Structures are given as C-alpha cells and as structure tokens.
C-alpha cells in the first residue's frame, strides 16, 4: 500500500475536507453539536498518523533501515504522472531528512488537539488542525517541486483561518500579515523554481519530462543532475547558481524566519490561538529550514559556499538580535515568539557552518525545537486561557496557585534555554563545535545569545510565577477569585510534551542517528568527500 500518499497525506486531507464540508452543509443551529464527533474523528486520524509514522520508524511498517538510506534516495517512494505536459508528478517519498519532520508533525497533531481539547467552535477547529497537519506533511514528503510548492502555499490557508477565527484582538491584522509576508517571499521562490526548471537541459529531464515543456519538476532527478554537474563543475554556472540560490533562500529565510524578515512571526504568534501557535512554531517554521536542506543546499553547494558568510550573518543576527529583543518584550507570547526567531538562527548557523556536525546540529535543532516550542506556546496559551493575560509583570507568585502551569512553564523555559539532558542541548553544543571550527571568534555572539536567553527566560519566570510575598498578585480581573490551574487535557498535553523533551534529551540518538546518516551521505556528495 502506498502509505505516504494514501495514509499520511490523503487520509487527513480527505477526512478534514469532508468534515469541513459537512459542517458547512448542516444548518447553523446544529453545528455546535458536531464539535464532539468532529474532535473524535480528527483525533483518531491524528493518532493513526502518529502510529503509522512510529511504525515506520521502528521498521514494522516498510522495514526501513533509516540509517542506510543515503542521500537523494528515498523510501516509500511513489511517483505518478500528474500534469503530463509540464512534467509534474505526484512524487512522494521519505528519507532521513524528511522523516523526522513528518514524525514530528504526526506527533504534534494529536498533542495539539489534546492541549486545546475544548477550543470553541471545535467542529471547525479540529478539522482545520488536521488539515494543517496534512498540508505540513505534504510539504515534507513532496519530491516534486511543483507539488512541494503547492503544499507549501496550502499550509497558509488553514493557518490563516486559525488565526483569523480563533486569534486574539489583533487577529485580523496578524492573519493578513502572516499570509502576505510569507506569500510574497514564496512567489519569489516560485520564480526561482521556474527559472531553475527551465535551465535544466531537456536531455537530462528524466523519464517524467513534460510532453510540452520537455523539462521535469522532479526533484530527485534534478538533484541527481545537479550533483553530477557539481562534482566537476558548477551546475548552471556560478552566476545563475547564485541568483537562484538567493531567490530560493529568500522564500525559506522568510519562512524560517531570519531577521530582518521575522516581524510577521511575533504578530502571528501573539494573535494565533494556542493550537495554531503550537503547530506554527513546532512545524511550520521548520519548513523553511527543511526547504533549505532539500533544495538550495542540495542543488547549489557552490553558491552555498559563496554565500556562507552572508548566511552566517543572517543566522548570527537572528540569534543575537532575536535574543536581545526577547529581553525587551513584556508580552509572554511575544517573547516566546522572538525566542523562536533566535532558535531558528541556530539552524541557519548550522547550515552556514558547512560542517557535518553543524548540519546534524541544525537538523536536530529543527526536531528539538519542534518539541519544545509547542510546549512553550501551550504554556502561553494556558496563561491566556486561565489568567486572561500574558503580560509579564501583570501577575506575581502564580506558582502558588497554579503549580501545574508554573511547573510546565519552568520545564519548557529550561528546555528552551538549552539545559543538558533536555532536547535542545545536544543541538546547541554540536552547533557551537561546528561554529567555532568555521567562524572562530564570531562564536562570542552565540555565546552572548545563550546568556541572554537565560536572562529573559529567568526574568519572565521571576516576574510571573515567582515573587509576590504573602500577597501574590493575581492577574487583573481575577482578584479574589480562585485562580485556576491547568485542565486535565492541558495537563496531559504538557506531560506528553515534557516526556518527549526528556526522552529526546536523554536519548537524542533516537532521532539524531538518522540525521547523522543523512548528513554523512549528503556531505560525501555535496562537498566532494571522495
């Protein structure tokens, strides 16, 4: 059975679209009654996705040796002609680069649902979350540029609605900004992709070349051609490689996001509902990093070398500047959003380092941040939900009333600042090793960022859950009322996320090994290791 097309992409997409149409068709009065069955169905689908991907991981499904896949070869690969005249195919497959992301998405889907179990208008919300997941998985499994781009843009739509319908006070502005900003970048990317498409030689376009255009969107074939050309020359020539690299990177940098293209993110995050933020930070941002690895890095290693320093500067600025700006935030969620910018800078630095360790660090950072940041946003969501405020300093001593929220916050914050034995540390350490090897004294910047990261996290904890003396200061509007703690569903979600953080902190090799394998294979090809 074609597991990837049918189960991983098709199932959630079809189910969510059907459910959404169903909601549209029933009379308005009946819609709220659908919330529970909708939630149940989508949750089951999410769990199925997680089980299937986990089965894939353990090899029970497909008997895959994730360490032995190599570079530009794929498992669960399926290819069907889609638009014959243009050489577009439905081409899916997994490798050690994409699988962790798919796994992560499948993991986060049910967790997100649990964390926001009772979200209002659940009959639309839960299918939208599932749709979101389907499109995200679609991005990661696509091995055809056309298909990749389609899923890439499709992810915007459910997220747009999630922000617009379930967001905060400024959601209208935030949703539009999010959409337009990232769309703008990705159309430039699209032009780059099309230019790349036409720069292929028709003779090398492979079996699925378009009957009309004579070229193919097939990424696997394109990568092979590029790799062959890059070994004893420069694929497409130096100038074109640089131009295309820049165009593609623009799309990915904005998505990542790297400073100075990051300002859509704080707005989107602050306004997005908890579930939206969790998926946005957990998976969606990684699309940018994934895209970088999948396309520009694979195709244009020469341009990568050429732009190494520029890329490093982007990462450097994102990391340091993001951290500094974090410290100046008074809104908890905004702070966490900027911390995402900062952490994404780490990924960029990993790529820029052009060290195997750096790549592995970046890949693992993608994964680790994908587990940690949802927890951060779940905590922010809990603040919003239970305290109706996310202003740092608007409340004190919450640990006394809401130990669960406080503990979750502390845990998440600590994980995010890179505490050893939690998921983020290994990546950060490996990054520093690679970074020093490549850029030397620039390392002081990341060092500074590490310290500042600790500063803003600790500062925010001190001024929300701690302090307060005898009279803890409740959030505005809650004086004298009992201050609630996490709901059961939120607790469960926090526990799952925390468990995953610890699991991948203590046993990072679960995911890291396959990333290493990919990196290893990639380096041999890309940077000419004999």
């Amino acid at each position, binding site marked *: 059975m074609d597991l990837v097309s049918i189960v991983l992409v098709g199932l959630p997409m079809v189910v969510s679209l059907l459910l959404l149409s169903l909601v549209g068709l029933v009379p308005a009065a009946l819609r709220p009654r659908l919330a529970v069955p909708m939630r149940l169905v989508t949750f089951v689908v999410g769990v199925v996705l997680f089980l299937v991907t986990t089965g894939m991981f353990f090899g029970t499904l497909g008997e895959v040796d994730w360490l032995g896949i190599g570079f530009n070869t794929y498992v669960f690969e399926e290819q069907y002609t889609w638009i014959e005249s*243009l050489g577009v195919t439905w081409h899916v497959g997994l490798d050690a680069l994409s699988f962790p992301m798919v796994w992560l998405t499948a993991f986060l889907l049910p967790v997100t649902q649990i964390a926001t179990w009772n979200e209002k208008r659940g009959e639309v919300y839960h299918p939208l979350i599932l749709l979101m997941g389907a499109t995200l998985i679609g991005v990661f499994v696509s091995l055809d540029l056309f298909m990749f781009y*389609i899923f890439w*843009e499709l992810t915007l739509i459910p997220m*747009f609605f999630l922000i617009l319908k379930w967001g905060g006070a400024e959601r209208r502005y935030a949703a539009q900004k999010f959409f337009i900003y990232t769309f703008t970048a990705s159309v430039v990317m*699209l032009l780059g992709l099309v230019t790349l498409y036409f*720069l292929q030689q028709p003779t090398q376009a492979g079996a699925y070349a378009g009957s009309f255009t004579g070229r193919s969107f097939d990424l696997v074939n394109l990568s092979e051609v590029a790799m062959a050309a890059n070994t004893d020359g420069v694929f497409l*020539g130096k100038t074109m490689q640089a131009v295309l690299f820049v165009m593609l990177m623009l799309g990915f940098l904005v998505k990542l996001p790297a400073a100075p293209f990051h300002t859509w993110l704080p707005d989107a995050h602050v306004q997005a509902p908890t579930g939206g933020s969790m998926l946005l930070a957990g998976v969606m941002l990684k699309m940018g990093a994934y895209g970088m690895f999948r396309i520009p890095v694979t195709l244009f290693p020469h341009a990568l070398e050429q732009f190494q320093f520029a890329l490093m500067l982007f990462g450097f600025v994102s990391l340091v500047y993001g951290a500094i700006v974090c410290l100046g935030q008074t809104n908890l969620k905004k702070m966490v959003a900027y911390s995402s910018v900062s952490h994404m800078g780490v990924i960029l630095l990993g790529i820029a380092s052009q060290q195997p360790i750096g790549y592995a660090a970046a890949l693992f950072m993608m994964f680790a941040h994908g587990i940690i940041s949802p927890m951060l946003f779940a905590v922010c969501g809990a603040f919003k939900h239970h305290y109706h405020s996310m202003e740092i300093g608007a409340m004190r001593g919450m640990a006394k009333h809401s130990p669960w929220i406080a503990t979750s916050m502390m845990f998440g914050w600590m994980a995010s600042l890179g505490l050893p034995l939690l998921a983020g540390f290994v990546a950060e350490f490996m990054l520093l090793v690679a970074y020093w090897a490549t850029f030397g004294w620039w390392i002081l910047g990341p060092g500074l960022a590490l310290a500042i990261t600790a500063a803003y996290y600790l500062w925010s904890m001190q001024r929300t859950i701690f302090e307060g003396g005898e009279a803890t200061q409740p959030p505005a509007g809650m004086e004298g009322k009992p201050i609630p703690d996490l709901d059961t569903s939120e607790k469960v979600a926090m526990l799952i996320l925390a468990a995953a953080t610890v699991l991948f902190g203590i046993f990072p090799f679960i995911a890291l090994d396959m990333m290493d394998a990919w990196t290893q294979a990639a380096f041999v090809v890309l940077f000419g290791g004999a």
Partner: protein
Amino acid sequence: MSEQSVPAFSSEFFGYFAAETVLLVGLVLLIVVPNLGKGTFRVPGTQARVPWFFGGERYAFTGRPDVPGYISVFVLLTAFMLLLNDLLNGWDGAATSALVHAHGDTSVRILAATPFSRLMETLFIGALLLVAVASLDRYRSTQPGAVRSVRELYNNRRQADLHILLLTCALGMSTVALAENLFVLFVGLELASFSSYVLVAFNKESKAGSEGGMKYFIVGSASSGVGLYGLSLLYLWAGTLQVDALALAWSNIGQEVLPYVALGLMLVGFGFKVSAAPFHFAAPDAYAGAASPFAGLLATASKAMGMVGLFRILLVVTLPDGTEGSAVWLMLLGILAAVTMTWGNIAALGSTNPKRMLAYSSVAHAGYMLAALTAVGVWNLGEEALSPAAQEASEAVLTALLFHLVVLVAFKMGAFLVLGVLENEGEIRDDRALAGLGRRSPLLAVTMFIFMLSLAGVPPLSGFLSKLLVIMGIVKVAAVDVGTSGASIGFLGMDLHWVWGLALLMVLNSAISVFYYLRIGVVMFFDAPAAGRDHPVPRAVFATVAITACLVGTLLFGIWGDPLIEVCRSAAAALLG
C-alpha cells in the same frame, strides 16, 4: 494542417458553423417568441383582419417573463455543447479547420473555424452562458402565473432585451474569434461592444448604472474610433486587411512609418478591450455601475475578445519568422505590461468597493497577459538561428495565455456572480456588502474565498496554474531559448533576457495582489454583517448553479489542468500555423 474550404451560406457552411447558426436562430426566436399574441394584420385596403399571431395581447405561455431566459440559456447551452464537441473531437476527422471564403476565390479568407477560434468561441459562449443562467434569478421580476399587467409586459420585454443582447454579444464575439480579416474582426468586435455598452447601462433606473454605461460607451467609442482609424491606415498602407496578406506585407516591410503608426492606433482599440493602462479608466466605473454578471462578462469574455485582436495583429501579422522589423512593439508592450500590472494592483490595493477592486485586478491581469505577449517577441531578434525555438516559445506563451483566459472565466466570473447574488439585496458600494458572509452563508463565503485565492494565484487553484504557466512562458523565453542561443543579452549580470524582469515584476505584483484579495476573505470571515444584510443570503438557485460551475472549473483546472493545457496548446499551434 488540413483545411476544409466552404463557401459562405452553403449547406456545408451550416454544418461547420452549427453553433453560430443556433445562436442566430435563437436570436430570431427571442425576438419572435415573447411577441406571439393575438395580434391581427389588416389586409391593406380592406377591413379584413387576418390573425398573424404577432403583437396584440400576448399568449400566456410564451409571454411569461422567464421564457426569454430559458430560450437564451437553451440556445447558449446548445451552442456551447456544439462548440465543445467541435473543440474536443474535430469536425470530420480529416479537416482540422474550416475556412469560409469569398465565392469563387478561396484566397479571400473571411472566417476560419480553427481549434483556436473554437476554443475562444467556447470561452465566449461559456461565459455568456454563465451570465445567462445567473440572470435567470437576477431579472425574474414577477412570479410565473401571476396576473400580468402592462408593467409586467414591459418587464417581459426587458427580459427579452437582455437575452437578445447576450446573444448578439455571442454572435459578435464568435465573429471576432473566427475572423480572418481584420475588418471582419472589427465588425464583430463592434457588435459585441455595442451589446456590452447596453448591458452595462442596463441598470438604467439607477444613477450609477446609467453613468457607468455612459462612460463605458464614451471611452469605448473613442478607442474603437481610434482603432478603426488605425485599421484604415493599415489598409492604406497594405491595400488589404486580410490577415495572411498583411503578414506577408509586414515581412517585406521597409523603412516606413505608416504601418507602425497604424499598429499603434490599433493597439489602442484592443487595449481598451483588455483594459490595459492607460485605456482602462472607464473599466472600474463601468464595473461598478453594471450589474455584477455583466461586469464579469466585461472582465472575462470581453477581455478575451480584445486579446484575440491582439493575438491577430501582434502574433500573426507582425511576427513572421525572424525577419527584420518584426516585433518592434517588444519594448513598447513591455512597458505597457509593466505599467498596467503595477497600476492595476496598486489601485486595487486601496479600493474598498469589491467591484472596483475586481476591475483593477482585471487591469492587473491584463498586465500579466501583456507581459507574456512581450515575451513572445523576444526571440525575434532577426536571427535565423532562433527560428525553431521561436515557434516553440510563442506556442508556450500563447498556450499559457489561452489557459489563463479560459480559467479566468471560471474564477473571475465566479467572483462576480457571487457579488451578483449579494446584489439582489441592494447595490454593492463597498466591502461591507460582503461582511459576515462567512456566518451568513459559509459555503458561499468559502467559494468566494476560493475565487479570491485563485485570483491571487494560490495553489492548487487554477489561478495558480495559469499564472505559473504565464511565468513559465516568460521564463522559458528568457532563460533558455535566448540564454543558450549565444545571443548576447543579459539582465543584471545574468544570462537572462530582460523580459525575465517582467516575470519578477509579475510575481511581486501577485504578492501585492494577495493583500486585497485576502482582505475580501477577512471581511467575509471576520467582520460582522452590515445592517440590512444580517439575514441569511436570499436563495438564488440558478446563480448557485452557475457559481458551482465556476467553482468546479476553478478547482478542476487547478488540480488537473493537463487536458485544458493540451487543448490550449493545439489552439495555439493552430493560430500560429
């Protein structure tokens, strides 16, 4: 390509041009049927009155106000099916095109039914069909079976007028698609234009309607006057207006001014139709004044008609293989394209009236298409070596353009039809008309949103694929055919022709456009319904059918565009010979 010659009005002629014949018959029917009645005819010089069933007190059955609509829909549907059949299956297996020529002289070409013209006709008739179907709701002023009054009779007549105009429009457009002679094309164009002037002004009971109609008429007449003058200059220069003869003449062009000026003046005439800047000014007013379905007609079929004219003069006449002096309009059209798309998008950015916004967006789309046309001219640098690539390139671009024109009918018309449904509640002056649609009618709102996303070019909708094809056409020309030919050109240090810059401008413009398309979505899903529009949307069965058809087209051609691309490709091949 095998060509079947048929003399005009021979029996074969009616076989090959069955669809057009049906339209003509339908036109007659529309004039006759509502007027059937107990009228009598006084034999001259006598007092004897012979019943001739025309005029007088109308028959109940034929006088129903909804009859003209059904007739028109039926006629258009039949024509559409016939055309579709022709388009997909060919005529008799042997001939791929049918030529109507002057009696006794096959070199005098009047009309030609080629895959290209069939495709365009299908497009025109399809768009008109959608309008006709949607109008069944729009202008059904009295319930069937109700007591008829003089006023109703009047309404009945207006109903008939409307559909008569649609059919004349159809005939005119068909003529444009079929014409092998620029003057015939012009006549068809005028026929369609006159119909559309009246359609725009059809809302004569409102200030906006009459004003929009007036402006559209005035500016349209002025530009068609300019166009006709350009045509006459061309005739003065060449002594013929037949397309193939003109192409021949153009290929032997010397240092002359006259043909270029003529070309420029004709560009104006067609530029108005496609609403290219700076000839687009009347468009927003006309769209705002006209009923939404007719505005949709202007934005789709009428624009496509203008594009046909441009194809004829730019691609067929002035672009013979690799000769000196061809594609002189390259730079001119490039500037025009850049200005048009940017102007349209920037203007649409701040428009709060959705109809004006769509009008400006239509201007922007014209710009995209002009950019693609520009790209076709690139290869023609007077180098023989490029000829094979040239054919391929112009085919690619033309295919993209045709695809774009076809799918535009789906989503642009769809958007206007949705607005039309809302117009049943009252005039649309700003986007508050759409506010809260997500709550009032989720499915309609989602549909409208899909149309908007498609206009913006979000995958996997057909708007994306069409835009992608256009970009691909431009890039193909800029990146490959020229880039690898050894021709010494470069753009910003890249081995790309400068038209690649148009592609860049185009994607940036699409990015801008997202802003205003998305705003419609935000208004629908975020804002609270405006006062007076807070009840559920009135039922409009026929409009819903038309909208559904548009939705299917939007989704289908986006996800599975292959067949349409093939059709467009063969049409393009047919046009370019």
